[in-house]
Structures are given as C-alpha cells and as structure tokens.
C-alpha cells in the first residue's frame, strides 16, 4: 500500500487516539524510516529500549506491525502495517455490519476482539466466563432476596437475560457457537507464524524455497519461468490459506455445522433451548488458537453494502434489496475484494462456482418483501423478452475499457454500433440453442401477466433483468437461470461515478459535462470542445482552467513541427481518471486527518469540562451532577464529536471504494 504523507499522519493519529502516545510515536517513526531494528528505533525516537519494547508489544498485539528475524544474526527488524492501522477507522462500520447480519452476540465478540487485538480463544472464553459469573452473582444476590427458584444453569441464564439485557453473550457455549459462525463466515481467522511478515518477505521466502527444490540451477527459458511463477503462486496461496485452518476444520464436520446453522437462524435471542442443543453439536474450539479479525473478508461484506446503496440510488430500493440478497450469496466464498496479481495468476478453484441461480435467491428473500414494488409496467407488446433475456456468458473484455479511455474521435459511435451488432448476434444464437427454455418462460409470462400480477419468481426475474440491463452492469446474466457479477468493471464504474459526484459538486454540471466528453472521446483540441458541449468558448476556457487546478483534467501541448512554435502548437485537453482518483484519495486522507485534528482542538478547548466528566462520581450521571453551563458545553462537545466521526466514516466510504473494493 502506498503510504502518503497524510495517510501516515492519519494512521499515527488514529493509534494515538486508541492506544496512546507511545505506540503512536513508534509507529510514526517506523512509517517515516521504514524497516528498523530496536537500536535504530532508539536512535530515531530518543526513547529507551524498555519504553520501545512496551510500545512495540502494544502495536504487535493489535497487528499493526510486521517483523522479521534475520536468520544469521537473530536481530529482529520491525515495519509498520499501515493497512491495519487504517482499518482501525472502520471498526465502527464493521461492528454495525456484524450487528445487522449476525446479531448482537456476534457484535459483542467482535468488539472484544477489536479492543484486545489478537487473542487466544482460551483467554477470550475466560474473559467472558468472568463477566458471566459476575453478572450471575449479582443476579443471584437479587434473586435470593426475592424468589425461591434455585434451579440449574439454564433458568438462571434466562432470568439473567431478563434482568440484564445488555449482556449479549450469555454462556460460554454460546460464545463458542458465535466464534464458530464468524470463523465459518471467514470474518475471524487464525494467526499463524507468517501473519507478521510483510508480503514481500513471504514472497521472497517462498520463491527461495521453490528455487531450491525445483530449480536449483535457476529457471531456464520462458517455460520454466512461467512454471516458477505458478509454483510461487501456489506456495503463496498455501501461506495465505493457513489462516483459514480453523475454518477448514469446522467445514470438515459440515453436517453439524449445517444443523447448528438451522437452529441458530430459528432465533438467536430465545436463549435456553438453543444453548443446550448447541452444546451437543458444536465442536469445541482449541483454546490455544489465536484469532483475529479478518479485515479482508469484512471489506467484501462492506463492499456488498456499498453496492446495494449504489443500486438503491440508481434503480430503486426493492431492486437493491434483491441485489443485496444476491450479493450475499455470491460472495460467500469470495475472501477478498481484489485478487493479488502474484497469487491469483491461475484460475482459482477454491472460490467455487462464480454464479448464483434464481432459485437460490428466491429461497433467501424475506417473505415480507413485496417484489411487485419498484417496477414499471408496460404492455407486453412493448417488451422484447429476447433482448431482456440476453445471455452474456463471458465477462466483458478488458480491451474495451482501455479503448474507451484511449481511442479518440468517433470512439463512442463505434462502440455503440459494435455493441448493438454483437449483442444482437449473440442473443440470436443463444436464442437458437436454448429455444424451448425461453419459450417456456414466455408462456408462463403470458398466462400470469394477462390478468393478475406476475408470480413471485417472475417478479424476481424482472428485478434481476433490470439489474442486468442497467448501464452500470450490476449483474451479468450468464446462464438461463444463473447470475453473476463482474466486480472489476463494476467497481470501476462506481469509482468513476463517485469521481463525477465530486466534479459536479466542485465544478458544476458544466464541468461534469466537459469531463465526461473528454472521457468518452479521448484527447480533444480546445477548439473542438465548444461544439460538443454547446457552451461558450470563454466559459469553457474558464471551466477547464478551474478544473485543471482541481486536478480533474490536464492539458498536453503537441507541436506541429520541429520548431515547436507555441502559437502553432495544438493544445489537447484530456482527463486521466486514475490520476484524479489518486489525488482524490490523498485529499480524503487529508480531510479525515483534519477532522480528527479539529476534534482534538475542540477537546483542548473544552478540556476543563471533559476532565470533570472523567471523575468517578460524575461519570454516568453527568446530567444530574454537573452545572447546567458545564453540561451544555459537554453535550455540545459530544454532538460535535459525533458529527466529526460520522463525517470521517463517510469519507472512509470513499476511500475504501477508491482503494480497496
């Protein structure tokens, strides 16, 4: 990951906010200086080795550090893990996501993991046991006074649950089950020896090993080189999959897992019964395993949410809901948003089949959803089912996207012609060899659509077809009943549309128009612009200059002859979306940084009030104890803090879209 100045500052500020100044300063030094050993760090930070060891331990605990022990002299060198440091900002978002999709207990477990960093399962269980015992004792004390029940655990738990609803995890068995579920969803994975090595170190190690075993004399010829690359990728994949060891183990007794899942979905909240049966079915996890949050998978789920949001904006809420269910099914086996070019050079079989069938989606839709909403209606004669049911078996070619940006002149016309042509060809041929199937659906349509509304599967199909037909290409219809998503081009479209939002907000609709013209036509002479944009020449010049300063467009000078006379040169405007996005990304870091800094300023300003609220006799009852003037200031501070954090979260949406999805 490229660490810019602002990102570095942001990361160390975040660590400062969460874990204190000591680790933050060490982290900042590591980011600034790169890989360093302990004595070097002593030099850079002018801290004692003892202090440094403490700080490093904290960083290490939270997976913010890479280290590498030199095999010759045994000296350890440390490197900052900026990616994980940035992920700290997403903690709230991840917790919220877990809460909505897995329920409160899972959220509680995740929160503990976030707070304590990577943890041995045994320790986690012990901590929860402590908490539960504590509550039980309190409950018992209450109960002893009032009632005569003195039953075994189950009932106690129930009363406890009634009395203290804020305790999300009620027994260690439940904890075990929750962890199992999260592991199966890949949201938690296992820490292993290579977790703390940078990807570069791992690559070097794997490459060395492959060289030693397979190519002692070095690879000769092109074939051998390809083979080497494949072997290395294989090795890297093995290392990567090591963190999934726990999941594999759970998968092996799959039937049990399935049973538990069924029970669980029945109702996670009605305590007693579940717990007993879970106790039978859950494999007890090895308490020595160390677990941590798997941010890569969390990002996949966050991406799904983001896409749903996008679809809501572009099409409508009902269709977006269907899309959300579909994405959930599709990405079950997707462990990361972006494939690693070094690891995933060959077809990855472990991802399983890359499509979802209509029936699967139907099975997972909530029965309360009315699918007839959000769809326009048109007479059947106006609908071409052939065009709608068009099947695209292959993902769109990459070439086209490069072309779109590079080719000038009549690119857009060409493209649309081409599209129209090939599409009709395609659908024709498809139509031929799967004729009966299409006819079948057609007949069904006719029957049900005549008088009444369409039946549920047909409505679902309508929503999916709508998604497939959209210009954003949310979905690709890859078989008669199969649907998939081409994430790479889709995310590209989304990034562009996000960039468009920024452009429209800063330079107005005219600015957006000009940029999009350049994007579709390639490089354009200044004289050609007014004609296409239907704007005055002077206006265009002003807008373009404004946008050049903002970094959305740029100009290129092409001399007509060797003399390079400025007066005779062509000046071509162009827009480089990737460059604009990179700039946007850095601006986002800077904005987030400023938000945190402003918060710090506010904190300083209201220091006296905040100090007061830290007192143990004030804490928790601020409103009653504090003077009104002070309390008002306090609540105003809290409101501002909330606002700023919300803003940071929203900017993070942008950052993750540009960088991670």
């Amino acid at each position, binding site marked *: 990951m490229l660490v810019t100045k602002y990102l570095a500052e942001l990361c160390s500020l975040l660590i400062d906010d969460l874990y204190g100044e000591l680790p933050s300063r060490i982290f900042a030094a590591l980011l600034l200086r790169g890989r360093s050993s302990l004595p070097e760090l002593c030099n850079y930070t002018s801290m004692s080795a003892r202090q440094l060891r403490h700080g490093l331990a904290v960083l290490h605990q939270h997976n913010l550090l890479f280290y590498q022990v030199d095999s010759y002299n045994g000296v350890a060198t440390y490197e900052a893990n900026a990616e994980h440091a940035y992920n700290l900002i997403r903690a709230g978002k991840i917790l919220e996501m877990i809460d909505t*999709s897995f329920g409160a207990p899972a959220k509680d477990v995740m929160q503990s993991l976030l707070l304590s960093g990577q943890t041995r399962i045994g320790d986690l269980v012990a901590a929860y046991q402590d908490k539960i015992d504590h509550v039980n004792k309190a409950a018992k004390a209450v109960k002893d006074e009032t009632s005569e029940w003195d039953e075994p655990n189950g009932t106690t738990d129930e009363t406890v649950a009634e009395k203290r609803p804020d305790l999300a995890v009620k027994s260690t068995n439940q904890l075990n089950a929750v962890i199992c579920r999260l592991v199966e969803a890949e949201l938690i994975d296992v820490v292993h020896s290579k977790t703390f090595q940078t990807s570069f170190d791992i690559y070097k190690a794997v490459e060395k090993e492959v060289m030693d075993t397979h190519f002692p004399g070095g690879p000769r010829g092109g074939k051998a080189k390809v083979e080497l690359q494949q072997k290395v990728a294989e090795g890297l994949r093995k290392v990567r999959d090591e963190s999934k060891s726990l999941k594999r183990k759970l998968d092996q007794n799959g039937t049990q897992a399935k049973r538990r899942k069924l029970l669980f979905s029945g109702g996670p909240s009605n305590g007693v019964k579940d717990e007993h049966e879970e106790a039978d079915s859950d494999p007890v996890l090895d308490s020595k395993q160390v677990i941590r949050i798997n941010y890569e998978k969390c990002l996949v789920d966050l991406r799904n*949410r983001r896409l*749903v949001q996008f679809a809501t*904006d*572009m099409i*409508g*809420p*009902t269709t977006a*809901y269907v899309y959300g269910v579909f994405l959930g099914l599709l990405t079950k086996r997707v462990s990361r948003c972006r494939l690693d070019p070094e690891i995933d050079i060959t077809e990855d079989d472990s991802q399983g089949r890359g499509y979802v069938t209509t029936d699967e989606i139907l099975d997972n839709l*909530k029965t*309360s959803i*009315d699918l007839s*909403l*959000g*769809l*326009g*209606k*048109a*007479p059947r004669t*106006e*609908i*071409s089912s052939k*065009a709608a*049911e068009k099947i695209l078996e292959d993902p769109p070619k990459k070439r086209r996207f490069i072309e779109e940006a590079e080719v000038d002149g009549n690119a857009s016309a060409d493209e*649309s012609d081409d*599209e129209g*042509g090939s*599409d009709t060809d395609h659908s024709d041929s498809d139509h031929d060899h799967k004729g009966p199937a299409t006819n079948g659906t057609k007949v069904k349509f006719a029957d049900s659509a005549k008088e*009444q*509304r369409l039946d549920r599967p047909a409505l679902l199909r*309508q929503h999916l077809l709508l998604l497939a037909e959209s*210009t954003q290409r949310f979905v690709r219809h890859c078989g008669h009943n199969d649907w998939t998503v081409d994430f790479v081009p889709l995310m590209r479209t989304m990034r562009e549309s*996000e960039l468009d*939002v*920024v452009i*429209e*907000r*800063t330079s107005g*609709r005219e600015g*957006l*128009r*000009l940029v*999009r013209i350049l994007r*579709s036509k390639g490089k354009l002479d200044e004289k050609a612009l*007014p004609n*296409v*944009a*239907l*704007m*005055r020449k002077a206006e265009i010049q002003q807008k373009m200059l404004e946008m050049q300063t903002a970094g959305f467009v740029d100009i290129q000078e092409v001399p007509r002859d060797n003399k390079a006379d400025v007066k005779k040169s062509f000046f071509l405007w162009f827009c480089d979306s990737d460059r604009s996005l990179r700039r946007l990304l850095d*601006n986002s870091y800077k*904005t987030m940084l*400023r*938000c945190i800094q*402003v918060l710090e*300023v506010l904190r300083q*300003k209201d220091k006296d009030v905040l100090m007061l609220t830290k007192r143990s006799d004030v804490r928790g009852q601020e409103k009653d104890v504090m003077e009104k003037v002070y309390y008002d200031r306090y609540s105003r501070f809290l409101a501002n803090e909330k606002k700023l954090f919300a*803003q940071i979260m929203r*900017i993070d*949406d942008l950052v993750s879209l540009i960088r991670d999805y």
Partner: protein
Amino acid sequence: MAETADPAKIQILKDALYTEARQHGSESRLFTQKDLTDLNVIPNDNVILLLLVVQALCDDKLFVATSHQSGLAWRWRSREDAKKYTSLPNDETMLVYSVIDEAGADGIWNRTIKHKLNMHEAVVKNCIKYLETQRYIEGMKNVEHPNKKMYIKANLRPSDRATGGPWFTEGELDTAFITELQNIVFEYIKKQSAYLGSQGGHRDAGASRVPKKGTIRGAAPEAGESSRGVKRAATEISNDDQPSPSAKAATENGTGATTTARSKAKMVFLPMPAGYKSYPTVSEIAKLIHATGITNNTTLGEADIQQLVDVLTFDGLVEPITVNGRKGYRVTRASKQDTVSFAKRQKDREAGIGLDEPPNGVQPSSNGLTEAPCGRCPVFELCEEGGPVSPSNCVYFLRWLGLDDTRSGPV
C-alpha cells in the same frame, strides 16, 4: 486555317459551348478539356479552335479556369455574375471580387485577400469599398473568429460553419434557447422512459425487516391519471390494505417514516422492465420538436437533436440504451426524479420559485468529501499545522459545526 479565327464563327461557337456546358452540370461542375470536346460543339475536335473559344469565354468571365488533378479545368459562370465582373472598373477590383467569390459561403478575411493577391493594403481597401457600395459583397461575422473582418458575396447566405449552425443567433451561442430546448427534450425522455407509479416506502435494503406492502395504494383516480392505465392489479391490492395504513411499516428508519406518511400523494418514476422496446429515439424526439413548432424560425435536423441529447448524456441526465439494435434514451436514476409536471415547474420558475435548483434532473448526489468543509475549502492546499491556515484556526470547520467565534467557549 486562318478563317477558323473568324470572330463571328467564334461567337457562335462560344454561345453554343456555353449553353451546352450549362446543360451538362451545375455551376460547380468542372469540365476538363476532354469533357468540352465531348460536348461535340467544336467541329472535328479542333484543339486550337477549342482553345480560342475557351479563351474568349474566359475573357467574358463566363468560364472560370481552375486547376484540376489532370491539369486545367473550367467551370461556367452565370451571365449575371459575369456581367458584374465585366462592369468592374479595373483589374484590381476584379481580382478582389473573384477571391471573395471563390471563398463562397464561408466568407474570407480581408487580410487573407491581401495575402493572396499580394496587393497594397490601400488598394484592397479601395476595391472593397467600391464593391460594398455597389452591393456586390457585404461584411459578415464568423463565430469561429469573431474579431476578424470577413466578406462574402452579397447574394449568398453564410454557411453553417460561419454562423455556427442553429445554436447561434447573430454570432452568439444562444444559451437560453439551448437550455429551454434541453429542458423539453429531457422532460420528454423522462416521461417516455419511466413509469409513473406508486412505490412503497424507501427502505435501506437489509436494514429494516418490516413488511412494506401496505404502501401500495394507487387509488383509482391516480391510476387513471398516469399516462398508461395498466395498473389494475395494484388497485386491487390496495383496497384491502387501505384500513391498515402501514403505520407499522414506518418504524425503523426515518426515510421510511416520512415516505409512508406522505405516501397518500406520493408518485414516483419507476424504471421500465428490462427489454422495454419503446425508449424514445433521437428521430422521435426530433419529430416531437418539429411537431410542437417550438423552433419556428430555425430548422433543427436530427443531427442537431442528437447533439442536444449527447449533451444531456454527458450531463449524466439520460443514458443511451440499445434494445434489439434500436438505440433509445432513458432517464437515469428514474426513481429519484421529481414528478412535478413540466407546466407547473415553468409557472413556478416564472413566479421565481426554485430558480436556484437545477432546471432538470435530480440534485447531484454528494459524498463525505464534498460535504466536509475541506472538500470545498479554497485554501485546502495551504492548510498545514503551523501554517497560516491550520486545523486549529479553521473558521470553516467552526462554522460547519455551528460554533461561530462569538459562541466558542469561554477562554
């Protein structure tokens, strides 16, 4: 051979050749030597005779010699034009006039004339002055070079390239005209490419799990109101849902609550089902514009409308969609479009309401960056801790948080 040069004979041949040439093509057609001999006017294909006749015609300005890829070629000129030439007082004026004549409908810059003829500026000026007073030529304006003094033959209309086409009025881009036309085109596409119907409360998909079906109602009068009355089924459902007006549905999120509360009159545009064949095409739009007669003194071709629609596409308001090879246009983000009728909006705008809103389409969406003060900060690049502008003295942030300097905490 001498009698071939007989002036009377040449006169006859001249007239014959001239009329024959006029029969064979327009003023712009070029005749090569072979073409002329093939007209069978000159007896025995006598080249020398032909030369004499053509020379005579050229002297009378009835033929114009031009170069052609296979050598010389000629085109004819009408007698009236030729008369103008012959009536000119001197050669210079004639040269100037011929240069302007050749430039045709595009017109020519007076400095180009000077360059081409290599004459003194005063002479050119004199000639132009004479020609102008004789109303043989007139000045014109070119949109591409508004500052250049251009001349054109008096009886010609400036070409589209010079006037800028239908979008220009008197050399200026007519933005008001364009905007109005755009609004009409956009409104048409919106109406034709999306379905006006009712929709259940907005739900953040996945967030709320309450049944939402209570919100379909589309009572009979409203269903009739929507342009296509295809919605019988919805009316049926709505009737049995009417007694329980979805108070339950409006629990979880704010947007849901507001939508359902207002849903009595809430109509939204819905996307058409996939494979819809009747998205409006450019030619349909052109027909509409033509039929309404909005542009009574300008004629707009399909290419002009295409230009207009392209601009709308670049603005992100409409998008092209190809169904079965038929390229139509549809509105983007249909469900977010407002359903206020065009006439009402016009009235509002005349009354001065909503003038600051974009004339068509939805408000641009925004993201975290554009909403934060930094996203719009004019001094963002300078902002640095310890610099003249820094997070600790940022006024924009204070204003954004509602902490004006006057109110910010006691010292």
